């Protein structure tokens, strides 16, 4: 809109209709993922694909075409969107879907809000028997084992790994691989079966102050990671986890971003094509542990094949990391950019806050077509973001 104003959609958040038999929810796009869960989990429905936080809007999930722990079997969020209504620069509203006005649909899902304003959407929810996940936790000793665990778990509904990005040598890439299935009624202990959608409300923790950034150094992260890994090896095996703890562990800690200090943090997430994944991940982890600038939150995930015009996912492995911002970590992230490019990977725009326009173009040949789309109907002048300006989109 302008440099100082953004389009605020949070108040455009009414639910319009819900079909009990198909699970299709029609809503305005300011509705939060948390609202959808609050309203429909008690009735036996859950989000078909969810990112790692529930404090995101429906419109945001569409614009970023978010993926979840089930990407390898279900694909990204857009696969469950029956249609969207998009307001284009001239104010006209077009309903589009994979069949009708398919080009606009395909560009908008994953288009980072740059094709128009997504006003309303129809989302197909997933039926679930309970609010619980049957989790299987497998510690792995190195990268090779981690990848093998993912490849062996292609049938699992959910799979994700916390990876110790600072471990070196023989332990490089050791992880806690977490597989998950929606628990059935029989999976629950008897007393819970009468109220399968009820979980205990968790107490919210909060980070009360911003510690100095120096607390986040190689030593503390290395120590934390070792303890976390060790704890994981003790809890290996199968157990029941409630939906909130399984999908949204960080949502339980208010202001968790403060642990990165006053200057905040930057995120890095890339995906590498399957055949280049092992070599690429090895190089990425090598660079990170060499720099000693790891993060507590390093997540590895196998992605399934996917075709959409500008969405992030592709078949292969995605690595996501958070770093406290400093000149050193920014340089490291540029190094990670180069390694990703060398292995034919690309970057997740929903996480990016620092990549260069040149890196984007080198990573993703689809950018030129996206630009042509942006130039049609004067979209480029009507809709821009700080990111679109930095990336010259």
């Amino acid at each position: 809109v302008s440099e100082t104003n953004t389009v605020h959609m949070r108040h455009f958040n009414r639910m319009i209709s819900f079909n009990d038999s198909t699970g299709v929810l029609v809503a305005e796009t300011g509705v939060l993922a948390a609202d959808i869960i609050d309203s429909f989990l008690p009735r036996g429905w859950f989000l078909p694909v969810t990112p790692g936080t529930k404090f995101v809007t429906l419109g945001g999930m569409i614009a970023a075409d978010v993926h979840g722990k089930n990407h390898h079997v279900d694909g990204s969020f857009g696969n469950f969107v029956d249609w969207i209504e998009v307001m284009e620069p001239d104010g006209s509203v077009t309903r589009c879907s994979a069949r009708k006005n398919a080009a606009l649909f395909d560009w908008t899902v994953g288009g980072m809000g740059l094709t128009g304003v997504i006003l309303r959407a129809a989302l197909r929810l997933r039926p679930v028997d309970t609010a619980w996940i049957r989790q299987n936790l497998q510690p792995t000793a190195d990268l090779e084992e981690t990848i093998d665990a993912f490849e062996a778990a292609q049938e699992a509904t959910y799979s994700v790994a916390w990876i110790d990005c600072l471990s070196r040598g023989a332990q490089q890439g050791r992880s806690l691989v977490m597989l998950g299935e929606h628990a059935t009624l029989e999976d629950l202990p008897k007393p819970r079966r009468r109220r399968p959608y009820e979980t205990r409300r968790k107490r919210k923790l909060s980070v009360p102050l911003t510690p100095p950034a120096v607390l986040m150094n190689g030593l503390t992260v290395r120590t934390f990671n070792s303890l976390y890994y060790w704890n994981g090896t003790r809890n290996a095996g199968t157990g029941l986890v409630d939906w909130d703890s399984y999908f949204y562990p960080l949502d339980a800690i208010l202001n968790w971003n403060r642990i990165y200090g006053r200057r905040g943090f930057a995120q890095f997430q890339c995906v590498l094509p399957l055949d280049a994944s092992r070599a690429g991940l090895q190089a990425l982890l090598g660079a990170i542990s060499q720099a000693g600038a790891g993060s507590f939150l390093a997540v590895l995930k196998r992605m399934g094949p996917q075709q959409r015009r500008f969405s992030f996912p592709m078949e292969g492995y995605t690595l996501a990391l958070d770093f406290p911002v400093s000149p050193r970590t920014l340089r490291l992230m540029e190094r990670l950019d180069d390694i990703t490019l060398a292995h034919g990977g690309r970057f997740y725009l929903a996480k990016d806050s620092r990549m260069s326009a040149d890196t984007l173009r080198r990573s993703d040949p689809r950018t030129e077509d996206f630009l042509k789309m942006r130039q049609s109907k004067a979209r480029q002048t009507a809709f821009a973001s700080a990111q679109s300006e930095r990336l010259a989109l």
Partner: protein
Amino acid sequence: MTTRAVLILGARSDMALAIAHRFGKAGHPIQLAARDAQSLAAERDDIALRYNVEVTLHEFDALDTARFAGFVDGLPVLPHIAVCAVGYMGAQAENQTDPDAATRVLRSNFEGPALILAELANRFEARGSGTLVGISSVAGDRGRATNYVYGSAKAGFTAFLSGLRNRLAKEGVHVITVLPGFVATKMTEDMDLPEKLTAQPEEVAEAIQRAVTSGRNVIYVRRIWWLIMLIIRNIPEAVFKKMKI
């Protein structure tokens, strides 16, 4: 889940809708009353879908006092909780020169709200239960040059609620006076309000629900307003009349 219906009068405002959401979330059936009630269909559907409760729309004009009895008769059930969120600020400059404008403000903030709650009060009294919630204003605590037409109507409403509470205290009917202070709504969106003193509509709704549950009588939504109004009420008139606040 509860079957105790909540009636919300003047349901179009941000505050009223936040209250409807709050009670809907707690499982109450909701009755939304406003002018041109059908235009609230999207809000009705939203609340009904989110909380799986019944939501109904009812035509209600706070200035059409002759129809109040018929309006209450037309509700699907006599509610257990009735919240009056009717209000209209107008512009003070116009209110002090144009009697029609002033009349509209006086009737919208005093006559209409008082008489509809009076109608409901009599029926609640006959039943022997219920809670009436009147949303008045700190502007009614002392008249000020900048909005005394609105303020005096709210003062009247506050006094009316106080009297109603006194009368019904022994009859099983509870009356709550809500003094929200500044609230970030469409009515105040052009004003430059201090953040620390300004509540979100959801805060007002939460405070009202808590007051209903715990049986409070008079509530300031943000506690600081109790202190501010205590001070404002106690400034000697000789000083107050020369102040610009």
